[in-house]
């Protein structure tokens, strides 16, 4: 992006002082660098979503159906009845402002409508007008306004400047969750065929080919074969991943991003090594699926229904293959969906067994009903029982910090499992400051389908708080690697780091595992999974050793 401001310019431009004009009188500006492109009509058609057409959010005319206001009104009403969260959150906000500076997009852009409270007010104002008598009576003075084109554009603009990270909900005294409001708002927009292409096209791809990237079965296999080639070169051992294997013990599902782009690919290689190790040593039978080849779920960023349609593949494939239970790879929103939605939407999974790790005998009772286990839980359990042969010294040149991804953090509570795995696979680990980790973690700035290319300015702005925390540990401890358990993170954080905090790279937790894991019969490991020479890396690390304290 040529017109992306430099980091200094961006920082200089952030002001957190709202204008003196009433917010209702400030029209939304749909701006390049912030807004994402409109959805491709072919994708909408494939999904059967309404109003497929070629349009642009920068146009004046969005080619809406004649009765669009009525559609929004009725959709709103239906969702108030279907979702107590929505109705209660519309009613009880007292506008105390505690959420305001908790939002990474507000921190990074300074746009007051990025305060969670005001983002919700965009919908609440219409709610008051359409569904409460007092609101309608008092009108604008009480924050009520009728739905019109300007309001709709404002919705579009700000509902796609929220990554549904739930950080605000942690600080809200009533637990009002802006993610929930954004989810409803986007559902309403989708009723009019208003979605961004970066969401709807992956959804369409996933619907047809099984994954967001549209990787077809043979190509999926090719890509893993390619990783096998690399691994053979690096370790001397060639893992042979199994695909669509009926009767396997475990079905493994991970986001397709990890088989497609660096540095996620190295995490995928880590998985392959782990499964190879477990198969050779303990006879664990794990299969990948080309049909359920996507852990992520951009349907979640579209509507509950779309989420369910995409998610259905996991259980369907587990049933078809007759596995015992499902193992899930490192991914953020995938785990929010699995942890809080999947069983409800597409369960009960009574055709599966209670997940038990056959190697350690550990029963994952916390997944007793959903029957899907997070790979960090799985690996942590293996390491705890001493079942892996690890040599963490191959990660000695790394000074690692850990980015808690929003969804596993505030939609699941996965904190100590990945930290345990990291601590067992590398020597130097430093957590970021406490206001930016664990349940208070900051979004990467590109979650909920906003990891497109055209909204780079928004992404860099939204990632500012995360980057700032990384900078702190980089300066304090010489941190040079940020681990994470999310495919979107792996895809977007390298950009964010090179923008704000150069010299810090990004890795998946299972890339660290892969590097530390010894395979039986391997040759001398001189390279890491990135095919970089370890001797060189360790040399550079020692050069910088002097300037860091430990």
């Amino acid at each position, binding site marked *: 992006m040529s017109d992306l401001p430099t980091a200094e310019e961006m*920082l200089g431009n952030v002001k957190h002082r709202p204008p003196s004009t009433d917010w209702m009188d400030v029209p939304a500006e749909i701006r390049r660098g912030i807004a994402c492109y409109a959805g491709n009509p072919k994708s909408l058609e494939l999904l059967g979503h309404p109003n497929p057409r070629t349009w642009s959010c920068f146009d004046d005319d969005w080619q809406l159906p004649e009765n669009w206001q009525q559609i929004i009104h009725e959709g709103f009403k239906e969702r108030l009845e279907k*979702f107590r969260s929505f109705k209660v959150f519309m009613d009880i*906000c007292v506008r105390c402002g505690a959420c305001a500076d908790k939002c990474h997009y507000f921190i990074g852009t300074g746009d007051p409508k990025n305060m969670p409270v005001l983002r919700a007010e965009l919908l609440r104002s219409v709610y008051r007008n359409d569904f409460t008598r007092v609101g309608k009576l008092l009108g604008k003075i009480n924050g009520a306004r009728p739905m019109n084109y300007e309001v709709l554009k404002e919705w579009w603009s700000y509902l796609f400047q929220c990554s549904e990270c739930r950080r605000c909900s942690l600080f809200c005294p009533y637990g009002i969750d802006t993610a929930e409001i954004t989810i409803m708002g986007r559902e309403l927009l989708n009723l009019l065929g208003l979605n961004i292409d970066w969401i709807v096209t992956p959804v369409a791809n996933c619907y047809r080919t099984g994954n967001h990237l*549209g990787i077809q079965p043979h190509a999926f296999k090719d890509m893993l074969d390619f990783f096998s080639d690399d691994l053979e070169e690096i370790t001397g051992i060639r893992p042979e991943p199994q695909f669509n294997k009926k009767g396997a013990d475990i079905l493994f599902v991970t986001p397709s991003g990890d088989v497609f782009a660096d540095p996620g690919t190295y995490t995928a290689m880590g998985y392959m090594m782990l499964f190879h190790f477990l198969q050779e040593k303990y006879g664990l039978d794990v299969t990948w699926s080309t049909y359920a080849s996507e852990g992520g779920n951009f349907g979640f960023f579209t509507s509950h229904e779309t989420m369910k349609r995409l998610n259905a593949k996991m259980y369907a494939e587990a049933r*078809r293959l007759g596995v015992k239970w499902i193992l899930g790879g490192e991914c953020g929103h995938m785990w929010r969906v699995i942890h809080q939605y999947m069983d*409800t939407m597409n369960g009960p999974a009574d055709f599966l067994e209670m997940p038990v790790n056959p190697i350690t005998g550990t029963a994952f009772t916390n997944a007793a*009903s959903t029957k899907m286990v997070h790979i960090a839980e799985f690996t942590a359990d293996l390491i705890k029982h001493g079942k892996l042969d690890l040599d963490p010294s191959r990660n000695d040149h790394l000074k690692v910090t850990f980015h808690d991804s929003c969804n596993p953090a505030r*939609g699941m509570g996965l904190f100590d499992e990945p930290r345990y795995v990291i601590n067992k696979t590398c020597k130097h680990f430093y957590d970021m400051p406490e206001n930016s980790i664990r349940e208070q973690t900051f979004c990467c700035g590109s979650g909920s389908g906003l990891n497109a290319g055209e909204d780079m300015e928004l992404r860099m702005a939204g990632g500012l708080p995360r980057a700032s925390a990384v900078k*702190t540990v980089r300066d304090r401890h010489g941190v040079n690697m940020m681990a994470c358990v999310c495919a979107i993170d792996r895809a977007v954080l390298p950009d964010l780091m090179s923008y704000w905090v150069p010299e810090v790279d990004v890795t998946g937790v299972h890339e660290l595992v892969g590097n530390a894991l010894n395979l039986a019969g391997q040759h001398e490991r001189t390279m890491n999974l990135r095919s970089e020479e370890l001797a060189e890396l360790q040399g550079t690390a020692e050069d910088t050793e002097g300037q860091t304290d430990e």
Partner: protein
Amino acid sequence: MNKRYILSLIAVVVLFLIAYLGVEAVPASKWLFGILIPYVALIVFVAGFIRRLLSWSRSAVPFAIPTTGGQQKSLKWIKPSTIDSPSSKSAVFIRMLLEIVTFRSLFRNTRMKLKEGRVTYQLEIFLWVGALAFHYAFFTVLFRHLRFFTHPTPLPVQLVENLDSFFRMEIMQDFIQIGVPGVYLSGLVLLAAVTYLFLRRIFIGNVKYISLASDYFPLFLIFGIAFTGIMMRYVLKTDVAAAKELTMGLVTFRWSIPGNVSSIFFVHLFFVSVLLAYFPFSKLMHLGGIFFSPTRNMRTDTRAVRHVNPWNYPVNVHTYEEYEDDFRDKMIEAGLPVDKMPEPQEASAEDEEPAAKPEEPEAGAADAATAPEEKE
């Protein structure tokens, strides 16, 4: 200036004038302000409150979406965060209790500042302190007022009165005298807290920007209630026994308007009536709403226990069979297992690279769109 708070202020002043001038000009209107309006207000309050609770309860809870504020309960050797990530009913109860009596989430509050190109956080405890002071003072005031609505006054109420007036502040000068009767701290704290909550809406830019008339109005109204109450007790004075006769008349349905109840009393009572009647239609319903908040009142054992969505409906999915039909030949060629043997038909031979950018939907994506099928 800001229309939103000016108008709210005017509204409260008008309410004051209505009650004060009404009672002063037309003594018979004391029956209106002292008896009729309080009853109407109470009925509106109770009915409106319950109606709102029922309307919330009628909305479904389709998914279990608690905000996990700490480590989940997973492996035995990892210590779960019992309260912030509650996996049992009793833990949820504790989480809710702490939320309601200590405003636990608000206690986390921090203030963000950009300093030297860095995002920094500092403790921001004032909102929490102010909110806590406000709510506890209000509760104490409310509880103390039971002395006007019970006879004999129950012991706990007397105890709270004694505690509340524990500090003796007897200021006696030639032109000012307070301290007898004993000064209730709760009233002063309430007044101070409500003032603070108002001032932060005026002076903190972001908060001012989001504040609506309906945020200022209750603050002014509560200020009015506390202020008239304090004036009545310490300065303007009214015959307490007579006032109680009136209030007791309300709760025992033996109405009377004793002659020596002063006008300020009716203003006070009118303000309270307005607040009661306004309550169910306003943000003040957060009192009831907090109990319904799904991010706080649900268990986090969502993978261990299945939550049932009452309106779960079947959706169109792309089944494996359809998928295999789309890609069978390619799968066979790549050595992937298939369920059905290929039919002797030619398949589309185009070799597709995975699309990196979704702008370009894949060739054939649209024409391969199959009619979605009902899930089993």
